[in-house]
């Protein structure tokens, strides 16, 4: 008798609305090895682009800051830059500094969050605890400037809504020192740890050629040797005038992505410090009376990569079309290149390495497609990922 066995399918998802991309990964596995991956998204499509067409130009930043809780500075900034481009508005210099500071603080707290979760996934709970602890002072700084820890609602067409209180600047500069110090410690701890080298190097490699074909952006591209960064390539806010480096790595594996994010955090602290030191006086906004017909493009280097907004106006008070593209929309499909051939214990961290929506992975389960029986739960996969680390650790002891 011939027995045909369907290969088990491992569904990751569907989703939880934390970020703008709602994902459902379906991994086909052959024993321990992933042989195919399919992604579906939009389980919580909110129709942001269409809602935007019903709002006035000045209301849209509040809408797009809610595309993503973590990138709530990047999306409105990209939109505002698109409108400023089409209406030929130049915001005052102080506003450009304030935008730079907020967007870099956002990058710091987002990257720290990633490092903590990556640690959690591979069984490094100390890194997880450290990350959460050291992220708090960054959020405090954001709160001091905008009044909010997230969803800052600070950027508007023509400038910013809230100014930085000049009396707070010395205190904020002082608060940056321990942040930089702790990030250096965390970076060194990761770079010097032989177990992490063994656990993450060579895992989930995205080659340079695939990075270009899938048009990925941000740390995902830079860790694969594609040296692109909107802040340097098409400078906005004050990035063109400040001294900082674009971090790239050649390997394309999970370790390279971790290195890029950790070193970028240190660069971001450098940028915030310079911007606070050089902060000029003057107003933070110009008056905007009307938006003429036309079209404009705004893009911003968000923590996960390029956030791209396209706005078209017919001269009315609302956009006739507004397109928003978040970086994960192009980064996530690259799993097709980086996950196939990986062990299941490595997939968790490979999926996380791109920094997509984490809450998705909490609904992970392995199902035998034939019987619909759950083979593994989220906890099982987490345990497998950690056991892999433990096995490597034992080799070193």
């Amino acid at each position: 008798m011939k027995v045909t066995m369907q290969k088990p399918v491992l569904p990751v998802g569907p989703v939880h609305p934390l970020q703008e991309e709602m994902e459902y990964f379906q991994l086909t596995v052959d024993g321990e090895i992933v042989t195919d991956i399919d992604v579906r998204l939009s389980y919580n499509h909110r129709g942001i682009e269409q809602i935007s067409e019903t709002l006035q130009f000045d209301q849209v930043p509040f809408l797009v800051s809610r595309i993503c809780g973590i990138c709530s500075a990047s999306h409105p900034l990209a939109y505002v830059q698109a409108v400023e481009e089409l209406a030929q508005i130049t915001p005052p210099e102080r506003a450009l500094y304030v935008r730079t500071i907020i967007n870099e603080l956002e990058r710091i707290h987002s990257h720290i969050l990633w490092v903590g979760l990556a640690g959690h996934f591979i069984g490094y709970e100390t890194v997880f605890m450290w990350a959460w602890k050291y992220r708090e002072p960054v959020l405090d700084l954001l709160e001091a400037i905008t009044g909010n820890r997230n969803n800052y609602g600070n950027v508007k067409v023509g400038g910013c809504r809230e100014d930085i209180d000049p009396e707070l600047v010395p205190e904020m500069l002082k608060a940056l020192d321990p942040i930089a110090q702790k990030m250096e410690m965390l970076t060194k701890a990761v770079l010097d740890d032989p177990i992490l080298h063994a656990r993450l190097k060579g895992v989930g490699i995205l080659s340079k050629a695939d990075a270009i074909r899938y048009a990925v952006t941000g740390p995902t591209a830079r860790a694969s040797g594609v040296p692109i960064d909107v802040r340097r390539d098409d400078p906005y806010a004050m990035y063109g005038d400040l001294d900082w480096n674009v971090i790239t790595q050649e390997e394309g594996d999970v370790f390279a992505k971790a290195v890029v994010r950790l070193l970028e955090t240190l660069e971001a602290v450098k940028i915030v410090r310079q911007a606070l030191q050089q902060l000029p006086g003057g107003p933070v906004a110009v008056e905007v009376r009307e938006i003429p017909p036309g079209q404009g493009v705004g893009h911003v280097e968000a923590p996960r990569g390029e956030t791209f907004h396209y706005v078209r106006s017919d001269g009315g008070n609302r956009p006739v079309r507004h397109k928003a593209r978040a970086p994960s929309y192009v980064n996530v499909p690259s799993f097709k290149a980086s996950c196939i051939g990986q062990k299941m214990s490595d997939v968790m961290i490979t999926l996380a390495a791109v920094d997509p929506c984490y809450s998705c992975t909490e609904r992970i389960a392995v199902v035998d497609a034939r019987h619909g029986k759950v083979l593994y739960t989220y906890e099982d996969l987490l345990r497998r990922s950690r056991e892999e680390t433990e096995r490597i650790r034992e080799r070193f002891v």
Partner: protein
Amino acid sequence: MNDQELRGHIETLSDRLTGLEQPLRTRYYLTCEAEQVYEICRFLFEDVRARFVIATVIDNDDNYEIVYHFAVDERGTVINVQAFLRDRDHPTVASITPFLPGAEWIEREMHDLMGIHFEGHPRLERLILADDWPDGVYPLRKGGAS
């Protein structure tokens, strides 16, 4: 590649274009008919080595318009290719996914929401809409899904 060389590259496309504007040093707006999209995008991706950013589909009442956004990061430049699909009953355009896998999702999204058919797409299945969404109803078209 400097700015002039980039402009030179783009000008070699002029036979295929109906318009070429450069309002800023770093922004190009090219207009063309739908039939030219495949060759223009292939040229930008393979010869100019531009990065595909995303595409925007717009319902212009008497036609559909797809704006393909490309970036030449080396020059910080964004090239927007505005293609017009004149046949409102059967809006069809060649898929660019066969040479540019990064376009797979957005073409499926435009197919879902605006009912554009992408010829040669390897897998023109639903991405955004639910599996039980009725066929032939496209939420982003003017007049909505009613």
